[in-house]
């Protein structure tokens, strides 16, 4: 049965990594959940959730912390006109409801 990522990931957070990049970290409790998360969060899938191109994103598994890091190029530089989130702290929403 598929489960919502938000129900079992320990942490799902977003934050700027400098003003031009956004980084989303998903941390899991167990190795199994980490592997499950990694198989679900494919570049195509993440692009679809964020409306971006494959070239604009990078997915980095970090097993030491049972974590997956997603790095997105910002469409608008932090704090420039039209930016919605200067610190980038609320850009994890599109991942919360996904089923894996």
């Amino acid at each position, binding site marked *: 049965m598929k489960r919502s990522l938000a129900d079992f990931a320990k*942490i799902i957070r977003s*934050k*700027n*990594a*400098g*003003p*031009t*990049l956004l*980084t989303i*970290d998903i*941390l899991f409790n167990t190795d199994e959940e980490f592997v499950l998360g990694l198989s679900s969060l494919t570049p195509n899938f993440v692009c*679809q*959730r*964020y*409306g971006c191109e494959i070239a604009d994103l*990078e997915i*980095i598994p*970090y097993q*030491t*912390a*049972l*974590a997956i*890091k997603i*790095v997105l*190029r*910002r*469409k608008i*530089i*932090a*704090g*420039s*006109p*039209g930016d*919605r*989130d*200067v*610190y980038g702290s*609320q*850009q994890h*929403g*599109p991942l919360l409801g996904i089923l894996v």
Partner: protein
Amino acid sequence: MSALERLLKLREQNPGPLRILSASGQLGFGIPKKSFERGIKSKPHVIAADMGSVDPGPTYLATDKIAAPEVLVRSDMRLVLHGAQQLGVPLLIGSAGTAGADVHLDVVLKILKEIAVEDKLHFKLGIIRSVISHDLVEHSLVNQKLKPIGPIDLDENTLKQTEVIVGQAGMGPFERALKLGADVIIAGRACDTAPFAVIPKMLGFPTGVAVHMAKILECTSLCCEPGGRDAMLATFDGDSFTVESMNEAMHATPTSVAAHALYEQSDPYFIHEPDGRACLKHAKYEAIDERRVKISGATWQAADKPWIKIEGARKLGSRAVMLAGNADINFIKQSKNIINKVEEVVRELIPFSEWSLNIRHYGIDGVTEWPEPPVNLPREIFLLCECIAENSEKAKLVLATFRQQLLHFGFPGRSATGGNLAFPITPPELDAGEAFTFSIYHLLELDDWSALEQLFPVTIEKIGDQT
């Protein structure tokens, strides 16, 4: 005897573990006193703090604004100064005044000197300046020595418009200041890690491990469960270090500390410094007990040439905002289309063309760009309308015109002909100051190491009647 000489002498007699106390990751936002005092009781050999960031946005860099409230900058500074003076240990603070240009650094120096006079403190102050000249950046741009970090374009024109440029000072300038006899060092823009890593590195602890320690320590207890802003202590012993929060309720665990390596980083495996990078691929995190973690294994890869991170911001114009809400499902269903049509009308009415309009539809996609519309439309939405124009009058004029056209716009299916908008305040147009953007967020390659000395000049001042 300077703080460094005292430390060297002490370690000659007793070369045991080295303790570094991180007082704050954001000096000026309030240092929890009890935890800091507990840190002082553990007799650290170094006290360090970070004070700035690029996160609050370009306005701070382009103007003289400081994000932290001055009252708290003063009380935090007083706390760390007295702590360092009481123990006779070096105090190192990076990125003074948020953005760390000269104007911000000078505000912090003024506060520091006032405290020294009021409290009759005596010490040698080391000052590191971080402003980078436009000429150097232009020269580097022409000679292709600039590398953008992420999507940011710089050309000669946007460089000219850039108000101020700062570079992130690494460990080198701090080392120079210490060797010149500084007891207290205040730096303009600096790498977050530099004030924490420099002394362990100078004392011969492995550089990669020192930088890893600094990366964890620079956010104080944020790496704990629960995370917080309380002082954090690192104890260096040989090739490893142990971290411990000075708040007993905060637990550093192997997972919480490893997870912190990800925080605000685009790469969890490397920490980049001007003179090389720390590689965390073989980093080990071991629990000592339920509150302390022992960390080892980071390696250091020295760079062939120095690379410094530079930041610049430029003005775009003036900003005004207009606040309005709507609770009519007929409008909410079509709000994007309605807004686009009204903007077209406004384009024809305004007698000047240099303006831009950004509308955020809170309730639909005000916070983030969702890939699909909400399953159920909200019963209310809030519109935050932002206009950038040459000056505040023009920006407000555009918004007032837009507001009036939107208020009475006749869209298909409209039933509420009394007006399309609810204004929470009047006038609904507000002056929001000047608008800026980051124009530079680049890596600048230098030809040789001696260039660093000119880029980050160090000066020493005697504070109080020191003999």
